[in-house]
């Protein structure tokens, strides 16, 4: 690729917003910041810690996630879980993603 930086920018633009959907989907099972970072990375949604941590709080503020402090272990951790509103939004976003996928396939002549 002639311009790696340009490619990186385009990829970033394309993936922007998918992290939110990924979080909403994966947090139907409660999880905490660092573990979620690991998990998303392993599932192909590489995201920076300094993006993810504030994002979780923003989604919580928007009522899409709920949180609970788990103090059972030596290290207290804040566990996030997708709320009902979050599940609903995840449904809408997933549907939109599927439509985009279909539309792209049609554009590529694969329909």
């Amino acid at each position, binding site marked *: 690729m002639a311009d790696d930086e340009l490619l990186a920018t385009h990829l970033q633009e394309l993936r922007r917003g998918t992290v939110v959907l990924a979080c909403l989907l994966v947090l139907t099972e409660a999880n905490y*910041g*660092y*573990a979620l970072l*690991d998990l998303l990375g392993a599932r192909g949604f590489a995201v920076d*810690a300094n993006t993810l*941590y*504030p*994002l979780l*709080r923003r989604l919580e503020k928007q009522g899409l996630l709920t949180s609970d*402090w788990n103090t059972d272990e030596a290290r207290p951790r804040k566990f996030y879980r997708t709320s009902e509103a979050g599940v609903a939004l995840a449904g809408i976003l997933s549907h939109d993603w599927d439509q985009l996928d279909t539309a792209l396939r049609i554009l590529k002549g694969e329909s």
Partner: protein
Amino acid sequence: MSTLTDRYVQATLRRLPARQRTDIERELRASIADAVDDRVEDGGDTAAAEVAALTHLGDPARLAAGYADRPLQLIGPAVFLDYTRMLTTLLVSVVPVVAAVVAFLRAVDQAPWLTVVGDSLGAAVTTAVHIAVWTTVLYAVIERTPALRLTPDRPWTPDALPEPPSRRARWGELVAETVILVLVTAFILLSPVVSTEHDADGDPIGVLSPWLFDTGFVWVFIALGVASLGASFSRYYLSWSLPVAIAGSVVPVTGAAVLGWAAATDHLLNPAFVAAAGWPDGTGTWLTAGLIALAGWTLLQTIIDAFAHSRRS
């Protein structure tokens, strides 16, 4: 807890509202500790793992901006166009006026030429800097306080496109310019023979300095007036081009300079007329200052016009 993490957490919390701090501190410390543990498990000493974990988290200011949902820009796209429009309008309208007023006041004080120009330029620069700074501060505040955006984004419509000056309006200007030139020329030529004041022999005392007529300098003024009118006509009939623009600018600039020079060297008013009419002593000075200000204004107008034309074409 080690000092490096402490310092990182403090640097982050410092930039956050107090009510968010406790919760974010707990979570952030846990996240950092998790990251350090993870790296230590992979083999590596604690200190190096801590450095790596913090490095990965990046600038605490950026992290805090993320937590606080603060923009990482001074003026964002939502208000940027309003900002530039406001700034341009203020600069173009206020700065020339301030410069002209200062030049006028300094000239009234009979300050040397260099002082007049220097003070005028200095005032212009100071004003421009103040306008730029305070407008920027105002819009940076608006950017951070959405409640201050009183007018919701007005949708743009093609009606907002700038209209080219209509030919008819420019024709009106041309007619007015011609009438003014004829009147002024008549006034100048008649001034030695028609006057409100008369000397002991009953001869009229001209309002303009006899020097102008003795040296024939008065014809220079009239020639400049005619040339200026010619330039206006050629601007009207010829499409804009650099030579026309230069010719059109040279005339008023020369006129302004000559007028300013004549006024400053007391070659404009007839001292005898001033004395006979019983005008106060300061009259000449005030008139001179006014003419110099007018000359300066003409010069400025010419420059602004040239810029506007060159941008439009």
